[in-house]
């Protein structure tokens, strides 16, 4: 599998050289609030720069909203079974935060990463739906968006539930067995177990990362309050000590600002990548569900064919006039079965490649996130040390006076 286009998800992917190398770079920018009241939503500017022949022209700008991205994700999920479709940021459950600057920025960033990951995936980037998404006018997009119904609107976790339900129905009715049909592949079992466990661990870590953001904000706030109180106390004291107090108070307020900044940094560069990781794992779970569906279908058809074969033989023995009909049916089923097998095997093959890439990519993503986080923490701590250290000469002066 060539990996020429598998690069880091970044907001701008500048072309290597204008005409020789094929490039497709997208940026999601410029969030604008539109509409009123309950109907209000955010629209984004999606700018595409490409030299792919299938695209109309080298640059295109369209306006898209969140549900358009959802449409794209659902279409890709349906068409490219076996590939881990890049995850989308969640729909916000809490009305209050839907239009905060922070939320809007986080969503914009996540959407940008989403589209770029698709654009850098060697298979997904060929998608016609992607082309539609990047180029179609708003009306067309709206029409397509409203057509989407049924299963594709569901979240991956819902898919899992459907998969389980269908599983139990099928196993009871068609195969007459109690147990659901599952692959007996120990390596795959191990992978499934790994993915499910991983989600738990990651969710916990992400939760603590989010709390850490809050703690930075809280520490910033309390330092600010403390600084103010100390300044007031200094005003009471007067003379050198009073000055010392007010300088301390001022420093505390400065550090409070630093802490708030760091909180934001942690949110964007550490907590959000962790959330992204969790979403990616959930996307894999959806693919696992698809694979199970495909496997089940393959088994189903295999069983049905067996029954049809037996039936056909019976008919041939009795020289029934229904033989011809049965033969046609049998041929059709055989084709379907082969198709199902192909689908399933493709999924297996793709998944194997995808998982390797996934692990590599995540190591890279996490490495960057850790690096940024550590940088931020070191910068903050050094800032704190410097700020307090600068006070000491003044305090020294106070005691000698």
């Amino acid at each position, binding site marked *: 599998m060539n990996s020429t286009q598998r690069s880091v998800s970044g907001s701008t992917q500048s072309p290597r050289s204008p005409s020789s190398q094929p490039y497709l770079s997208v940026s999601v920018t410029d969030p604008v609030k539109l509409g009123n009241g309950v109907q209000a939503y955010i629209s984004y500017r999606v700018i595409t720069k490409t030299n792919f022949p299938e695209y109309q022209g080298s640059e295109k700008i369209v306006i898209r909203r969140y549900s358009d991205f959802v449409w794209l994700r659902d279409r890709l999920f349906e068409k490219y079974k076996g590939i881990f479709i890049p995850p989308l940021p969640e729909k916000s459950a809490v009305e209050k935060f839907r239009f905060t600057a922070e939320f809007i920025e986080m969503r914009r960033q996540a959407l940008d990463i989403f589209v770029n990951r698709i654009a850098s995936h060697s298979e997904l980037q060929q998608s016609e739906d992607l082309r539609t998404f990047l180029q179609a006018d708003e009306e067309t997009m709206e029409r397509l968006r409203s057509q989407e119904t049924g299963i594709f609107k569901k979240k991956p976790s819902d898919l899992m539930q459907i998969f389980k339900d269908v599983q139990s129905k099928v196993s009871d009715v068609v195969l007459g067995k109690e147990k659901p049909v599952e692959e007996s592949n120990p390596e795959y079992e191990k992978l499934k177990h790994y993915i499910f466990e991983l989600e738990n661990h990651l969710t916990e870590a992400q939760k603590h990362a989010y709390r850490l953001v809050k703690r930075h904000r*809280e520490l910033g706030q309390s330092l600010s309050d403390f600084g103010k109180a100390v300044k007031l106390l200094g005003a009471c004291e007067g003379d050198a000590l009073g000055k010392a107090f007010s300088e301390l108070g001022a420093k505390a307020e400065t550090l409070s600002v630093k802490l708030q900044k760091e909180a934001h940094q942690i949110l964007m560069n550490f907590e959000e990548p962790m959330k992204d990781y969790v979403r990616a794992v959930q996307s894999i779970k959806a693919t696992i569900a698809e694979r199970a569906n495909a496997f089940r279908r393959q088994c189903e058809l295999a069983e049905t064919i067996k029954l049809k074969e037996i039936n056909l033989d019976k008919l041939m023995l009795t020289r029934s006039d229904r033989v011809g009909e049965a033969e046609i049916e049998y041929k059709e089923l055989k084709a379907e079965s082969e198709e199902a097998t192909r689908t399933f095997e493709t999924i297996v093959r793709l998944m194997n490649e995808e998982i390797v890439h996934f692990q590599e990519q995540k190591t890279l993503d996490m490495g960057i996130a850790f690096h940024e986080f550590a940088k931020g923490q070191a910068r903050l701590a050094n800032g704190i040390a410097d700020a307090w250290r600068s006070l000491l000469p003044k305090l020294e002066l106070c005691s000698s006076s």
Partner: protein
Amino acid sequence: MMGSENNGFEEAHLYASREEMENHVLNDPLNNKSYLSYRSALSSLSETHNPLSPPIVAAPADSDPLLSPPLQYRDLRKPNVPDNSYIEPPSYADVIFSPFDGDSVNDVNGVESPSRSSDSSQSLSRSPSSSSEYIKITVSNPLKEQELSNSIVPGSNTYVTYLITTRTNIPEFGGSEFSVRRRFKDVVTLSDRLAESYRGFFIPPRPDKSIVESQVMQKQEFVEQRRVALEKYLRRLAAHPVIKKGDELKVFLQVQGKLPLSSTTDVASRVLDGAVKLPKQLLGESVVAPDEVVQPAKGGRDLLRLFKELKQSMANDWGGSKPQVVEEDKEFLENKKRIQDLEQKVNNASSQAESLVKAQQDMGETMGELGLAFIKLTKFENEEAIDNSQRVRAADMKGLATAAVKASRFYRELNAQTVKNLDTLHEYLGMMLAVHSAFTDRSSALLTVQTLLSELSSLESRAEKLEAASSKIFGGDRSRIRKIEELKETLRATEDAKNVASREYERIKENNRSELERLDRERHADFLNMLKGFVVSQVGYAEKIANVWTKVVDETSGYAKESS
């Protein structure tokens, strides 16, 4: 707890290798949620040898395990630290830890409570003349004892005694080291006697009596809190330049057996005594005895005097005529206002300090939890690893987790220091109570003087009237003459009492003044030390935390090229 001493020393060698850290992290009592609130932390953390959460206690222990690791941190420290840093040691990590080394510091420059010894290398501006004097008091070894009474229910009169050990070279004590056993009731007695003897002085407030049931009284935590509070109290008393030379404290610290200070009478017997006196007072003219005049009316047994002074204070507030002596000292009134303002500001700062401590605490906890979550992830990835990228990621995670756990520990240690540092605010709030008491002494002494003056003037006018009346009768009225004589006698006694009361009032005024001076001076020094201690520990720990994260930055620097 979980072998606190042990953990402290094991932690000393943590920083050497990651494996050790992981093991300790996994067994670590970081999951212990029994973290102290600010107020209880104050009472518990100032004493080094107490069995509380290991991460806090480990640092100030006698042989400081954390003094060795800074060696490796020196290399990793930011190269652009200004060279003109005036503090000699290369890193604040060292500066922080040595002064907090247990009790030895307290021997310097008189007694200081541990919170004030934040920078022993600095000479304090106080008591330079008595710098060769020292007195050190330790409270320890609480024991349950039985009261010898004929109580029907056995064991109902148990109480706790504490061993109070004093080491001193002050000659008045006539000894260099001695111990007594005292119970809390004795401390209350001491405190009451001091309040009587040292009117006008800022007497450190004693620990609260606690109205809890006897079961709680004997719980270890309560006893320990009380022990710490008692020690603090006695040390503060011994730091007071006047009280420490007084008899009351000496007797308390030295005399074996039962405390030979008259114990406080309870209200009931006070009222009884007062009731016994009352008929005599109502029937005849009673004058306040000079020795009683030097005590406030309130809390005494002389009910009639109490009524008279109450009447006087009403007259002061609502009466038309101004009393003859009023609080005129402008300087005092200004100071009083200033102190009130100060109290409010200190109170405010104290509660903000409490919030700050809580926020630092929470930061440390969450950082630790994050670290643990990543440790778990590391283990998981390593166990399930199929390809190499997973192992690399696991290693990266471990680096982050280790740093987070270390940083978490530093936050919590910093917090312990912050609590100690900012404890000074809390202490001065306590002092405000003493100031209020001293000002109350003054105003009640003034009231006594005013009352006696009023009485004098009313007695004088009565005497005048009587004399005028009797002079009209030739030869005089024997009974009236007798009355005049009695009245003159009362007048003289009242005059004496007034003089004593006036002297007492002046004395208290002078005490107030000198104490205010002392308060301002000492507060200046103490607050300065507080600020220094606070800043130094903030710097020291920030440096340590920065080093921890810088290490991770270096380890993950390979990824830096990848990001835009």
